[in-house]
């Protein structure tokens, strides 16, 4: 059983670039306690970093440093569920992803970031609303549990 199964951890961090590394470290420590393997932890770090960066750059870019980003980790028995919420105006995730798929000439960092999140995590949901900001929910299942399923 994963450590602290059923617990959750919630942090509110400034929407400033220097706190992306803080968020990555915190989530990798939680994943390590849950006995994810090193490759899974690296996947989680990259996906979290991309979601947090997206929240800073597109969630509330005008007022960097004045808004807070909420990072929530739900520790389930077989999975880590990470939710990143920013209070910005929201955006259309489908458009950002499509920009990447049109090829190198139209590559955008946001498109690359969303592609990485979708590729590295087992489940990803985006919800964006001008009144509620943007919420990215990402699920990573433990490799051992996935192997047992097979």
């Amino acid at each position, binding site marked *: 059983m994963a450590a602290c199964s059923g617990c959750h951890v919630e942090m509110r961090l400034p929407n400033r*670039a*220097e706190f*992306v*590394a803080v968020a*990555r470290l915190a989530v990798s420590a939680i994943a390590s306690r849950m006995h994810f393997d090193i490759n899974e932890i*690296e996947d989680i*770090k*990259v996906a979290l*970093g*991309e979601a947090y*960066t997206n929240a*800073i*750059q597109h969630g509330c870019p005008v007022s960097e440093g004045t808004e807070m980003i909420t990072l929530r980790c739900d520790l389930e028995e077989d999975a880590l569920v990470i939710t990143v919420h920013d209070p910005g105006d929201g955006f259309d995730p489908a458009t950002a992803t499509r920009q*990447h798929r049109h090829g*190198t000439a139209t*590559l*955008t*960092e*946001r498109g*690359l*970031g969303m*592609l*990485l999140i979708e*590729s*590295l995590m087992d489940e990803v949901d985006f919800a964006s609303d001008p009144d509620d900001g943007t919420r990215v929910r990402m699920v990573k299942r433990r490799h051992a549990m996935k192997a047992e399923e097979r």
Partner: protein
Amino acid sequence: MGNAINLEVHTHCVDARTAIVDISGEMDVYTTPQAKTAMLDLLEKGYYHLVVNLQHTDYLDSTALGVLVGMLKRVRERGGDLRLVAPSPRIRRLLEITRLINVFPIDASEQEATNKLMQEGMES
């Protein structure tokens, strides 16, 4: 929090138009501007053949990938090229996911990358 905590960028010139950029540490939205500034500085001085050594780069995100793609476009517009050296398996995986593995030439060592850039220069 200073950038130097997470990232170190060292540049050195091989010849009049070829330079090496050694990047150690973590390249993310906070630290990548430091690497971008160093590469833009080289471009301004006429170094359009760049070797970016990622041997000691522990972490790299979409911001860093975006900057590297931007630099690649800039140097190629000027008749140059940008080659990556020794990305870790983790970084190579990110390049594969984003399909940038097909965009960047990748070499095992600085020497190999430098030789290829010099060869390209002689042929152009």
